[in-house]
């Protein structure tokens, strides 16, 4: 009896020894700073600790009347509702096409995946060169087919859509790879049974493929949503001299937070906006998981 007790104690001691450093890391670098952000949002920050003062919920009431924040929030929502569905549909479409061909499948998969691993900063500069209104190759090509030159990233009405398209271009391969793996994991027997029953291709897609892909779709949707809600790197680099512009039309919450905190040094107010971003991500992720993860039984 004594031996077993000491063995269990020994195991627990080892466990705590193994966890000491990781636990310290997560407590001090992840959990404590999250609460500190909440705490900071209640203060007017100053580099000199003596000049920091408590303002209570003032920053939160200021958010309600901040038109720039409203714009950033609206843009961020637009990016997400535009980007995520398009990204999912395109990713699934390419995966279905890839599944329908036998030759060169690996080559195509690699080609579609390449943009995903390239640094977003470099991608953004390449696109801002290609989409340059006067010297860009895209307007040149549009000219060949008689379409007038577009301003793309410099037009307040086109910039957000253009940024979204660039982000989708970069993320597409990730979705394709996931969907392709999902498609390949669906047992052949389901399709054979459906064929024997004389089901139409649409019925097969609607009642076999889609429901069985659900776990992949949920994962992709959640990852994609979180990505679009935190959009930053592309927006900064696509319009570097007027970040978030033209006239705030591409500004995102993440970029606004960055500008508040590190260009204007309003760290307290910036922290309050991060709390808002946190709340949005939390709610949306929970809702998505609930709506999309209904189990399918066969």
């Amino acid at each position, binding site marked *: 009896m004594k031996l077993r007790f000491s063995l269990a104690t020994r195991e*627990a001691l080892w466990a705590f020894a*193994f966890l000491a450093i990781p636990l310290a890391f997560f407590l001090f670098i992840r959990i404590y700073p999250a609460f500190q952000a909440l705490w900071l949002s209640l203060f007017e920050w100053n580099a000199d600790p003596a000049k920091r003062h408590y303002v209570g919920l003032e920053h939160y009431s200021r958010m309600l009347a901040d038109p720039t924040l409203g714009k950033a929030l609206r843009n961020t929502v637009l990016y997400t509702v535009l980007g995520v569905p398009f990204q999912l549909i395109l990713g699934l479409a390419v995966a279905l096409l890839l599944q329908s061909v036998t030759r060169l499948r690996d080559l195509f*998969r690699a080609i579609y995946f390449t943009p995903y*691993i390239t640094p977003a900063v470099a991608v953004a500069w390449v696109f801002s060169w290609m989409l340059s209104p006067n010297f860009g190759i895209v307007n040149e090509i549009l000219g060949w087919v008689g379409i007038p030159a577009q301003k793309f990233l410099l037009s307040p009405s086109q910039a957000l859509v253009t940024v979204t398209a660039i982000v989708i271009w970069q993320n597409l391969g990730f979705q394709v790879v996931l969907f392709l793996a999902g498609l390949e994991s669906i047992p052949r027997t389901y399709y054979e049974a459906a064929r024997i029953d004389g089901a139409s291709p649409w019925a097969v897609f609607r009642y076999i493929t889609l429901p069985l892909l659900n776990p992949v779709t949920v994962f992709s949707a959640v990852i994609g949503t979180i990505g679009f809600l935190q959009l930053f790197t592309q927006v900064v680099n696509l319009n570097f001299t007027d970040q978030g512009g033209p006239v705030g039309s591409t500004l995102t919450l993440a970029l606004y937070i960055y500008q508040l905190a590190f260009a204007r040094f309003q760290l307290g107010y910036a922290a309050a906006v991060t709390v808002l971003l946190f709340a949005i991500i939390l709610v949306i992720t929970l809702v998505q998981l609930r709506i999309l993860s209904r189990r399918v039984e066969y």
Partner: protein
Amino acid sequence: MKRLPTILAYIVLVVGGVLMVFPLVWMLLTSLKPAGELFNLEVLPRAPTLDNYRQVLTQTDFPRWFLNSLGIAGITTVSVLFFDSLAGYTLAKLRFPGKEIVFVLILATLMVPTEMLVIPWYVMSVQYGWVNSYWGILFPGLMSAFGVFLMRQFFQSLPSELMDAGRIDGLSEFGVFWRVAFPLVRPALAALGIFTFLGNWNAFLWPLVIIQSPEMRTLPVGVALFSGEANTAWHLIMTASSLAVLPVVLVFLFFQKQIIEGVVLTGVKS
């Protein structure tokens, strides 16, 4: 009858493939053009030159930025692989009081967006003098909650008899982890390693906040600030971009299979 859809599928895939590759090709072609050819928009450079590369590599700290990124991504990856495995293993295979709480605590950190942590990290860095230092750039990434979760899943699928056999052979608990369990989860380590490295290699927000002097820049920060200063010298900007993109694409071509399997593995397991 079956030929036509297949041919259509190939056509769509090829058109899409061209759209995927063209921006990167255009970037490379532009980087080989002398400044004078920049705006005539011919596809191939008339007088291809490596002069732009010489200029970017000698007139900026580019080689230094490259090494900074390599070092930071490398150290971070080693740290994540070791500590995430250790924590994942402990949570999967060892019995101790408070296990559930520790797991939930680590998992909960996944919900907090980086933006929320950046401000406190910055305040902390100012306080301890970590601003503009390598430690300052890399400390937030030394472990990853996702990695702990992933490794725990993999260690759980190992039969406990293997660990018991190691104990009977006289290995210490750390020996059991390091010699028996750790080598058995290699596919998961490869996937986590690739993602951690890529994530840190491409990271932008936090390095941009914490780096102040040109020689401390990581590659993405260096490319962004250099391009911002280069104004309309697109041949130089595309050269800097090419220098940032090429190593990643080369590594990808080499490890294509492992990388794509890694994506699938992390996607399916979680």
